[in-house]
């Protein structure tokens, strides 16, 4: 009874509303909603009765028979658990979308209600001919609804839908005829009873029908045009109702097709995913992008059908399709129907959440299903896995472009519906996470040394806490981002505690994307966010592929290890990938840059450490390759930093350059090298965070980060200057301050291993670091104070206090590095597989086979000398007089103005001239070249979507012929 109510109540409502919309239009909307509500209620009751919410037994079902006799003379509906959940989504979408659709044209209410009935009928059908009935109802109603809006292209799209539906009908009926002739019945099970030629024919026909209906590549042309041309409101409701129903129906039929080898389906799906998403690179209209995304999910369905069976299959299908449908609905609901480019006025989070869902980022619901799917695929065929991951990555790229490049203004009305569906998505995330949490593990067993684990956790945690107060100082144009920074930091802090690959991946991705969101809150942050998001997605997908390929251990040696190394290199910004780093750091709010430089980059170091240790022996994939990558990056980034005139950009280049040193240390695979790497990681965190926080203070007070507009700030911001000075001396590696230790260990390690060319270039790079270090100090703090900045105040306390704490820590570890080293060196010695001799600590002296270092003595000596010099100053007569700022020996003239006498721009022109003989390799051009290649590839694929409906019909028919030949040839 409940089933009948669920399915047929809307139909009743449709009939009634036909009459009501003519007589009493005002009431008709309420009445329709009432009918829908009734249907929803019955569906919910049904779902509770079936126990569908526990996701365990999705095959439970209730059967409803109507009419007399057996189908096809009557309609038998079977409501399974999974189908009922999908039905609830259908109802919810229609209820939420109805008011928007019918506000213009109330007469389409009957059509909407019929669409609901058709969807539910399709979901619950058990018989091929019954399905055909509902399929027809749905198609015709779709045509009507497409034409009913006021869009410019409605007739064109409606005709396309009509033509394609017509072809589908023909093929489907042909299949039904063949089935009935061979087996005499038309239930779904009849498909399994076919043999020989009829089986072949029916498989080909049904496959064509399904692929055309679900809009899988290469038959997705009409779908793309449809999503682009239909009104966004209807497209949204369509994607969450009819499209979902068709997908679920196809999911039911595909496993029953009499195909000899189901892997064909998987390959069609995987290939279609890659090619279809490649074609989507150039899409600009959001509707079309959603169309490509639908094609992606259809291909994923084919892959699922080809590789999984039984309970896994039902569960994965349900989760993927349902949540993708809700997400697409949300995206469409954010569109403004007036606007030519509907998503121009979409809002921040409301757009982001569904996009992240579609892209499959944890912990959002679709992720769990994708992870499981990819794990299964890894067992089937690595090539298929690679194809699927590549396709998913391409999809993520254009979706992220959609999100990051839109402006911010929120439309006035229409916020309620997307908010509710976003809540649904979030609720789904929570529920699924709770369900899957047994597979998470926080045992920390990935890194055997607890000291190192504690070190990394301290770095991440302290980094978060110290930058959090500064997140409240926002300059004009930045929006609030503290929550995302905190989220990123918390997930990073738990990262060292991860015990298996899935946990690691989830925490990694959450922190990466939370950081992406925080960066996007900066002013004028569009391009930087996009680059950051794409690289975060790239390293995330590489990591995912390698985790999945490794099976039970964390990272297996061989291909997975290489993939992880590439992922870590991307995240560190080495070898040309620095572009995202530089752009993201410049675009982000300044405190966020501090957070990223201090913590996120260390996450990649952590990844390399545990990946190398994964198999129980340190297996650096060609350690010398890593070391060369690191040293070349260190040098080139140092030169770029020296030639750059923007405060944040310089610090970004400097960060990437210092990461190069850490990479060299790791690549050495010796105790000395790893000591250098860990030492440098910790100290880099200290001084880079001081530098970035100082920059945040300066930018906050002066409003600019351009060297040419700053200068002389030592007079107004002395504390910031002191902290920055100490940090700069530290990272230049000048004893007695801390950075020298890292360099010392590194060179000892390199000499010990005999890699002298790398040592030479590393020493050169560390000297080049002086160049940009001095330029930074001079251009911002020394020199002449311009009149514009004559009244700036010292940086706010929220930024000064963290800097002070970090500086104190830096000074402590400068004078007493053994406090740090006596814990770290034994920890590194205890790691298996590292060669070489460990440094020996003797009180305050550190000794290696070739050198020794006594930081305490050197520090005391410097302090003593300074003290002596101070005393000497005091004793040497009259105090010097402080003269005015412009009282310089200027050939007897008065200097014209402070700005004209401050030398900050074009600082190293001789250097540039000296370097002029080198070819100008610009990393940006390399990346543009690569993206051009992809775009051209995508264009050639896209050429098949001509926009002419006859082409699409031809696609289906050609596909039919090909698949028949394929199946005939026997696979």
């Amino acid at each position, binding site marked *: 009874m409940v089933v009948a109510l669920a399915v047929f109540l809307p139909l009743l409502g449709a009939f009634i509303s036909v009459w009501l919309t003519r007589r009493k239009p005002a009431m008709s909307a309420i009445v329709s909603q009432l009918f829908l509500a009734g249907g929803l209620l019955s569906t919910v009751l049904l779902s509770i009765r079936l126990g569908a919410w526990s996701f365990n037994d999705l095959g439970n079902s209730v059967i409803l028979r109507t009419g007399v006799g057996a189908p096809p003379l009557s309609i038998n509906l079977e409501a399974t658990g999974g189908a009922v959940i999908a039905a609830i989504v259908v109802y919810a979408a229609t209820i939420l979308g109805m008011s928007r659709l019918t506000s213009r044209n109330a007469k389409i209410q009957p059509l909407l209600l019929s669409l609901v009935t058709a969807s539910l009928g399709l979901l619950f059908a058990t018989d091929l001919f019954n399905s055909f009935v509902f399929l027809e109802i749905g198609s015709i109603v779709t045509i009507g609804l497409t034409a009913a809006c006021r869009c410019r292209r409605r007739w064109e799209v409606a005709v396309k839908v009509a033509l394609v539906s017509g072809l589908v009908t023909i093929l489907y009926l042909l299949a039904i005829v063949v089935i009935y002739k061979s087996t005499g019945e038309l239930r779904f099970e009849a498909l399994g009873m076919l043999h020989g030629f009829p089986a072949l024919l029916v498989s080909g026909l049904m496959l064509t029908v399904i692929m055309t209906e679900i809009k899988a590549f290469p038959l997705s042309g009409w779908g793309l045009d449809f999503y682009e041309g239909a009104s966004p409101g209807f497209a949204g409701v369509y994607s969450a109702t009819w499209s979902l129903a068709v997908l679920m129906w196809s999911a039911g039929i595909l496993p029953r097709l009499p195909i000899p080898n189901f892997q064909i389906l998987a390959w069609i799906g995987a290939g279609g995913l890659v090619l279809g998403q490649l074609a989507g690179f150039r899409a600009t209209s959001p509707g079309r992008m959603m169309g490509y995304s639908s094609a992606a999910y259809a291909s994923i369905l084919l892959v699922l059908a080809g590789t999984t069976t039984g309970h896994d299959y039902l569960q994965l299908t349900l989760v993927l399709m349902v949540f993708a449908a809700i997400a697409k609905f949300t995206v469409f609901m954010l569109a403004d129907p007036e606007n030519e480019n509907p998503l121009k006025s979409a809002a921040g989070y409301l757009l982001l959440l569904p996009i992240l869902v579609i892209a499959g980022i944890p912990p959002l619901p679709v992720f769990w299903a994708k992870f499981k799917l990819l794990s299964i695929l890894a067992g089937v065929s690595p090539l298929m896995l690679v194809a699927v991951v590549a396709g998913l990555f391409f999809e993520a790229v254009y979706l992220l472009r959609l999100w990051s490049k839109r402006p911010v203004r929120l439309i006035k009305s229409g916020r309620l519906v997307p908010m509710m569906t976003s809540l649904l998505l979030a609720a789904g995330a929570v529920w699924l996470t709770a369900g899957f949490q047994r597979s998470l593990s926080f045992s920390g067993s990935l890194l055997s040394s607890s000291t190192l684990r504690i070190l990394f956790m301290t770095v991440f945690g302290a980094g978060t806490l110290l930058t959090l107060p500064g997140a409240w100082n926002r300059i004009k144009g930045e929006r609030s981002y503290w929550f995302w920074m905190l989220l990123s930091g918390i997930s990073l802090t738990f990262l060292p505690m991860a015990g298996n690959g899935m946990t690691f991946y989830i925490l990694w991705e959450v922190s990466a994307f939370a950081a992406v969101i925080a960066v996007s809150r900066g002013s004028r942050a569009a391009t930087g966010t996009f680059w950051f998001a794409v690289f975060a997605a790239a390293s995330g997908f590489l990591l995912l592929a390698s985790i999945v390929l490794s099976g039970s251990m964390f990272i297996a040696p061989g291909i997975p290890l290489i993939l992880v190394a590439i992922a870590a290199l991307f995240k560190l910004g080495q070898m040309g990938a620095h572009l995202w780093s530089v752009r993201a750091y410049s675009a982000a709010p300044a405190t966020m840059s501090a957070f990223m430089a201090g913590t996120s980059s260390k996450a990649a170091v952590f990844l390399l450490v545990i990946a190398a240790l994964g198999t129980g022996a340190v297996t650096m994939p060609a350690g010398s390759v890593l070391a060369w990558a690191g040293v070349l990056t260190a040098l080139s980034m140092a030169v770029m930093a020296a030639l750059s005139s923007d405060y944040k950009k310089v610090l970004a280049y400097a960060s990437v350059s210092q990461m190069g040193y850490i990479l060299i240390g790791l690549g050495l695979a010796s105790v000395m090298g790893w000591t250098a790497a860990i030492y440098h990681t910790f100290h880099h965190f200290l001084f880079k965070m001081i530098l970035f926080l100082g920059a945040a203070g300066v930018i906050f007070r002066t409003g600019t980060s351009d060297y040419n507009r700053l200068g*002389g700030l*030592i*007079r107004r911001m*002395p504390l910031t200057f002191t902290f920055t000075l100490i940090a700069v001396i530290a990272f230049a*590696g*000048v004893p007695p301050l801390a950075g*020298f230790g890292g*360099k*010392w260990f590194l*060179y000892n390690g390199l*000499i010990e291993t*005999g890699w*002298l060319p790398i*040592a*030479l270039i590393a*020493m*050169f790079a560390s*000297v080049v670091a*002086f*160049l940009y270090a*001095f*330029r930074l*100090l*001079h251009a911002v703090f*020394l*020199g002449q104070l311009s009149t514009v900045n004559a009244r700036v105040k010292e940086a706010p306390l929220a930024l000064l206090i963290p800097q002070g704490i970090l500086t104190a820590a830096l000074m402590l570890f400068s004078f007493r590095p053994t406090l740090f080293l006596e814990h770290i060196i034994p920890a590194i010695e205890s790691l298996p597989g590292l060669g070489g001799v460990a440094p020996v600590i003797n009180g305050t*002296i550190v000794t290696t086979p*070739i*050198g*020794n*270092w*006594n930081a305490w*003595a*050197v520090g005391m*000596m*410097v302090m*003593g*000398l*300074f003290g002596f*010099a*101070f005393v000497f*100053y005091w004793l*040497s*007569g*009259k105090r*010097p*007089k*402080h*003269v005015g*700022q412009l*009282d*310089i*020996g200027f050939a007897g003239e008065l200097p014209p103005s402070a700005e004209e*006498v*401050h*030398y900050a721009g074009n600082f*190293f022109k*001789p*250097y540039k001239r*000296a370097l002029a003989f080198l070819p100008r390799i610009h990393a940006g051009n390399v990346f543009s070249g690569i993206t051009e290649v992809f775009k051209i590839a995508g264009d050639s694929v896209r050429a098949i979507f001509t926009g002419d409906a006859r082409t699409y019909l031809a696609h289906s028919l050609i596909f039919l012929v090909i698949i028949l030949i394929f199946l005939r040839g026997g696979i």
Partner: protein
Amino acid sequence: MIPLVISITFSALAALVWGLLLGGISRMVTARIHGRIGPRLTQNFIDVWKLFRKKSSIHHGTMFWLAPMFRIAGAIGVLVLVPLVVGNTVIVNMSFSGDLLLVVYFMFFGCLGMALGAGDSGHPYAVIAVSRGLAQMSSYELSFSAVILVLAAGLRTLSIEEIVMAQQDGILSWNLFRYPFATAAALITLLPMQMAYPFSIVLAPQEIPIGPPTEYSSRFLSFMLSGRAIFGVAKLVLFVNLFFGGASGWVSLLFKTFLLYMFPIFVSTVFPRFRTEQSIRFLWFVPTSLAAIDLLRVMI
């Protein structure tokens, strides 16, 4: 502790006297080459004392008056970290506290200080000089690093004491003869280190008013000159230890540093000045290739 302070003070004073004296000698030698008479041998002492006793001085800011302190601390620090006389147990200073890498990086301490002071003076020419100087320094450090790597890898040690000890088997065991190309490269890099022509772009007196010390006067300038003197001596002692067998006694130390000091003097009197990019390119290629010959020898 007290003996250490006394020995450091003694070394610093001795280096100061010797450095200023060497300066006077160099001015006299230069003058004789020019055909002039030249100043007294003690002229530099008189200059420093006159500046120190000036009755007024000005400063431009905190970093400005801190800079000479950095310079002196850097200079005395390098002197103290290098062993002066091999085998001498009385004046040991702190040569066991750090090895060659520490000394090389500590040399930047003083330069950094002076650069900061130049920046704080607010005079654009001072900063121009610093930027040129930094560019040049990064270039000669490339070949100097190669030389250090040759010594470290060839003698299997970074400790200066041990490098000196390895050269005690007679004159042919000096690194001058063991690694001649590296020594040649190091001698070429000695020129920009001592700011001698043709690499004197930093203090180009006729172009920019004297470079970084542009705004310095009276007692600050006297500190700077003293610092330069001590630093010069420290670098010479370092080179003597690295390449010329160390000093077995005080006379030998004075003699060797004097001879080594004459080398930049003789070169600088006959050469004009390179432009910055010319000096950068020269220093990148010529001494590095020389050092690379020995580097290859050591690696194989």
